[in-house]
């Protein structure tokens, strides 16, 4: 006899879940891979190894990882302030964190471009700063190229612009995953550590931070995944220069506009596979770092 369950309706709810997941995730993804399979292996390889695709891949994953990392650190700081201190306007600040979720990404992109363009509010100072570095230190190589870009174009229309847009949209994920965990920590473990002679820094590093690590990584993963797929905000600020500031989603759209549906599906499939592999690895890493699973 089958094991009796206390909560009824397992068959029905499970069936519904699978149907729903199939409809909204599995079937569209399967369609994508079937479309991509219309091209042979050789064509796949040729398409994916074109310099333009490789450059876009590097930019997409690189900028996403960098943006998610910065979001993780800054998110930790902001969450700390929101959870640990009571000050006038705290609730307002708390609500503000969600704005990047609500704002249409195109609006965010256009606004960021305005601000970071060479004549924008922040962009002009970045531009001046970069010019100063250029004349006084004349950095060469990759760094020199970046500085030259910044001097000429502010932070917009460069990989740094892409990074800024991705930081903007990824930030709330870190705060929202970290907040409930930090609220649950309670004062007692810190007081216990304090009576045992630990100073503030040791309490943070050895007692608080380890307990936050799982949530931090989850926040990073969400921000990272969101950044990889981000389109709307990036295309405005990046300027979409082939080989320089093109991101993968943009390349896919470009293929579609030329009616190369298979090529678009191939890039999308490859992107999906790489994302899946990376997310899976992060998941493994999280399990290793998580004290609950050791």
């Amino acid at each position, binding site marked *: 006899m089958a094991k009796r369950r206390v909560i009824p309706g397992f068959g029905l709810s499970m069936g519904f879940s699978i149907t729903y997941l199939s409809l909204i995730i599995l079937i569209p993804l399967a369609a994508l891979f079937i479309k991509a399979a219309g091209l042979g292996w050789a064509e796949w390889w040729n398409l994916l190894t074109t310099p333009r695709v490789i450059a876009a891949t590097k930019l997409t994953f690189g900028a996403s990882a960098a943006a998610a990392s910065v979001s993780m650190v800054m998110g930790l700081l902001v969450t700390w302030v929101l959870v640990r201190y009571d000050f006038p306007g705290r609730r307002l600040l708390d609500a503000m964190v969600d704005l990047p979720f609500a704002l249409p990404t195109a609006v965010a992109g256009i606004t960021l471009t305005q601000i970071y363009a060479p004549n924008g509010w922040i962009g002009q100072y970045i531009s001046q700063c970069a010019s100063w570095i250029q004349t006084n230190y004349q950095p060469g190589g990759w760094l020199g190229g970046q500085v030259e870009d910044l001097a000429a174009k502010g932070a917009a229309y460069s990989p740094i612009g892409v990074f800024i847009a991705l930081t903007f949209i990824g930030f709330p994920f870190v705060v929202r995953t970290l907040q409930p965990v930090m609220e649950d920590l309670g004062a*007692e473990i810190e007081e216990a550590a304090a009576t045992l002679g630990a100073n503030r820094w040791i309490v943070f590093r050895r007692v608080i931070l380890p307990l936050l690590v799982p949530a931090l990584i989850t926040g990073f993963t969400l921000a990272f995944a969101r950044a990889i797929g981000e389109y709307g905000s990036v295309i405005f600020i990046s300027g979409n220069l082939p080989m320089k500031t093109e991101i993968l989603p943009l390349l896919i759209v470009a293929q579609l506009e030329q009616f190369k549906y298979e090529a678009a599906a191939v890039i999308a499939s490859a992107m999906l596979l790489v994302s899946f592999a990376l997310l899976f690895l992060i998941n493994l890493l999280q399990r290793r770092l998580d004290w609950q699973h050791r």
Partner: protein
Amino acid sequence: MSISIKSINKTFGNYAALENISLEVPNGSLTALLGPSGSGKTTLLRIVAGLEFSDPGEGRILFHGEDVSETPAGKRGVGFVFQHYALFRHMTIAENIAFGLSVLPRSLRPAKAEIHARISELLKLVKLEGLDKRRPHELSGGQRQRVALARALAIQPKVLLLDEPFGALDAQVRKSLRRWLRVFHDEIGLTTLFVTHDQEEALELADQVVVMRNARIEQVGKPQEIYDHPRSPFVYEFLGNVNKLSASNGSHRYIRPHEIEIAFAAEYNPETDRLAKIDHLFSAGPVATLSVRLDDGQFLEVEISRKQLDELALDPGDEVSIRIMDSSKSGV
């Protein structure tokens, strides 16, 4: 090491948590801070630990004559045990116990082997040998509280402070851990101050009981002393069951349930006794509790041995004669 608490005041906003508290905790004693919630006992303990600071002014905390009022918690050398253990759940039991030693500056930190030896010694002391590699969530409540105690003792504190140490445990564990703590205290002889709202716990465990109420100390003394000579109606009522009997002139008399004798109505002596009617009978256990109604309508709770109840063969509704024994205190 003795603890001297001198005229401590503490307010939170408009609320006075402690009002002019002075107390001496003798060297090597086990002292209980007993009181209902909101009486200020935990706040007082936290001020002694340095987790809270008293209002600026004359208030002083001295450890063996040395003023520690301005010393932060980490430098006071106190072992503090929390009601909900406050163990570091991402660390093993050994890492928890070693924490206080591992955060010492390098010059003062014992060598690895020495820390290791200290952990084994402490685990043995709290009867948890072999659990060093476990994590807190794998242990029972009683075991966790003993780990917390070992962790507090690892830094070789000058005084031990326990905040409702058995409050989160179930009745059986609480009782056995209580007895164990008494024996343990006598072995190590560390000055210990603990907070409890359980009068039975305080009376059974402590050398000295401090009864607190509404931010003030109500009475200080040995358990027996406080039980036998309560200085106020509050202390009388707080230390176990008591009957409050009103006289016709408006005065009150307090009588403990075991200080009342009961007999057949036929033995009634108008000089010393009163007539009463049995209202309820609870006879599960070695002591039977009777609720009786006096002729003037007041209720009294009476405790007699089960044996006596069986001999008298009483039932609810029966008339009985009641005599209040001389040992009881009257007219507070």
